[in-house]
């Protein structure tokens, strides 16, 4: 289904205030089912859990547990399996983790606007908040500025 965008929709699209988001085309199509929308978030959580487990240490252990919990909650919400693992550059584990957290953030933001089930909307927002939190923790470990944007959507500089 292709819907005509209302004046309000156009205004709202312009109100993103720095949010350069996927899925904001002026021609709005019927979004895919929630299971499909949540699948990239699940793939990112699984990839992050594995990475943090391999990294080890106190922070690695803590974040691995958080990501395993994310994956479990996403599966309970009906997230589909088999979405591609997000691409991340090679390099030190913290840098790879930061890139993966940014990819996870983008997946959560995309899903948050489109999922139909209220519980799935709340879940994606909570996972987004957690990914944003992890990003600050990783930046601090890397000796970088913790806050880089007022709208952590995964498109700010890591």
């Amino acid at each position, binding site marked *: 289904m292709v819907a005509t965008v209302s004046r*309000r*929709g156009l*205004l*709202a*699209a*312009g*109100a*993103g*205030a*720095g*949010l350069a*988001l996927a*899925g*904001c085309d002026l021609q709005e199509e019927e979004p895919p089912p929630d299971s499909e929308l949540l699948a990239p978030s699940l793939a990112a959580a699984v990839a992050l859990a594995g990475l943090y487990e391999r990294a080890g240490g106190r922070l690695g252990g803590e974040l691995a547990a958080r990501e395993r919990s994310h994956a479990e909650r996403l599966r309970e919400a009906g997230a589909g399996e088999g979405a591609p693992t997000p691409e991340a550059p090679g390099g030190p584990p913290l840098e790879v983790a930061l890139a993966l957290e940014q990819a996870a*953030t983008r997946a*959560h*933001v995309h899903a*948050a*606007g*489109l999922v139909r089930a*209220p519980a799935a*909307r*709340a879940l*994606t*927002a*909570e996972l*987004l*908040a*957690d*990914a*944003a*939190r992890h*990003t*600050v*923790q990783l930046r*601090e470990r890397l000796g970088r500025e*913790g*806050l880089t*944007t*007022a*709208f*952590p*959507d995964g498109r700010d500089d890591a």
Partner: protein
Amino acid sequence: MPERLTRRAALAAAAAGAAGFAIAAPQSLARGASEGEALTELIRAEEDAAFVYTEAVLDGTAALAAQDSEHAKALASHLEALGMPVPGPTRGTEDLAPEALAVLEARGDQARRREAMAFERSLITGCLQRLPRLEEPNTVRTVATVMASHAQHLVLHELIDHG
């Protein structure tokens, strides 16, 4: 940001009652009105946060007031798209929600930091509670990223607090 009953809210409620308007239960509000009301509440909370971080002296939080102002502006754009009036900036402590006022009333760096952490938790909760009342995908995304920003503010406070 739980339900607040500030002087501002009490005055608005009194004015509505005096004018003979029935104050509708949230469930019975039209969906657009509910979204607008939710956005209005969120903007007020962000304006409060900008005021608090401008007034409070807290190490390592120089960026927070500006970020909270950016949140308010982004949310205001969505509210304007609904044709609803945008609340102005917070100008004094008398209009602050209790969680916001507690930051300014705390004495000592550590106590103020702890209150700021509690305030950030209330802002996160406030965003989460209002998500079901939003309709436009981009509005949902803006509120979700504002919520994520407050999660970042919270962890920043925690990192400073733990040294």
